[in-house]
């Protein structure tokens, strides 16, 4: 089943800590059960984001890499 994306956050080109800061802020604005799509290019996000999800209780639905070195994550707000 396709996940319905409620908001997309574009963090392409940004370095640590901006992607995680923007993500945490965007997640604050979502309602429980809503899904955020984040795209970015900082390799650090690949380890920071799953750890943050585990700690904050939000659910990482998908993580993958698109063409051109762009990482994509789908996170469901708890």
């Amino acid at each position, binding site marked *: 089943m396709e996940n319905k994306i409620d908001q997309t956050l*574009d963090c*392409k*080109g*940004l*370095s*640590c*800590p*901006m992607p*995680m*800061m*923007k993500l*945490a*802020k965007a*997640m*604050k604005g979502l309602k429980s059960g809503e899904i955020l799509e984040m795209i970015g*290019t*900082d*390799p*650090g996000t*690949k*380890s*920071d984001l799953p*750890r*943050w999800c585990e*700690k*904050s209780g939000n659910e990482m639905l998908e993580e993958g*890499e*698109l*063409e*051109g*070195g*762009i990482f994509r994550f789908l996170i469901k707000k708890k």
Partner: protein
Amino acid sequence: MSEKTKEPGVLGNLFKTFFAKHWPVWVGAIVLGTLNILLFAIKSPWGASGGINNWGENVYKLTGIFGLENATSTSTSFYGMLCVFLVIGSFIGALLSKEFALRIPPKGELIKGFIGGGLMAIGATFGIGCSIGSFYSGVPALSGGAIIFTIGMFIGVVLALRYLMWEMEKFPKFSSGKSYNFLSGTGKSGNWQIYLGWIVLIITFIIAYQYSGGNKIMAWFIIIGMFMGLISQRSRFCIVKAFRDPFMTGEADGSVGVMAGLVISVFGFTAIKYFGIGAGDIAVRAREMTWVFPHFFFRAAIGGFIFGLGMTVAGGCAVGTLWRVGEGQVKLWASALGFLLISPISKLYIVPPIVKALPQNFNFKNYLPDYLGYPGAVGLVLFIILIWYVFVKWNEKTGRFSAF
């Protein structure tokens, strides 16, 4: 038609262990701490700002301004070369894990990178050392000034983080806009990165071998620098992260990693100083005072504070900047440029008049074992690390001081 994926062999699995996923920070930090002990045993501990300053002096040497014609050329400067090979080591690590790409950020981020780098340069000149020399090496060197530098840096990080949050709320456009990503290694077509990684690794060993005839210490600085860059890139070792994340997302992993590296280094450095290992012709006292800088306490406090502001705005401490340069993060290229261009200027013109105006007792060498003995000094450092550990773990659980 489904393509059958081949199971990697023994060597393939070994490669995957190092380059498929990021390493835990504590693993990287412990290895970096061990390499730092090795550097000290060979010559003197790890430092980054001195090497970056050497790069800057060589840039000005080319232009003939500021009277830096006699600056040591980078190819003969131990710390200049250590920093060069730290960048190359990170480049190798990024290539072998197919994580290299030229990542060009929005303009506002480039400006922040340059300003952050410039502030780090001023902080490192004032505090005589950076996040490495006056913290990651300075604290294990049992320098009282390094502890003061660390406190100053901590306050700088917390304040600059508040600025970043304010900026994100009030001026979100500053960190958004057009960005570009080139030369990434996605998919099979990105395998060139792995081949290039091996080639650069082999070239590094050839260069180290070339040096080994006339300058054995330099050969080791090249190899250790390369490994330091590779390990920092794989474990994403960063001092800013260690100080900032507890106050941002509440994450403690970066802090705990840095602590693990510090604990290893404390014991290694103390053994070297205690026994005068590697003292050679110099007095044992001089060996003991290695990396104990004349910055206690005012120079260390102010230097640490300015450095903390700079590294948070730049998004990378001295080493965090260098390895991100090797990974292709162009924001940190701006930061390295700001650092190297401002550092010689701050050494020649900005810091000396201020230091001259300070009372003499604001900048002396404080070696903790002189006051507390070796057991007391080591005990004090370990106690401070323990308090820091309890704080970050408690904060991670309760979120008491985290912004998100």
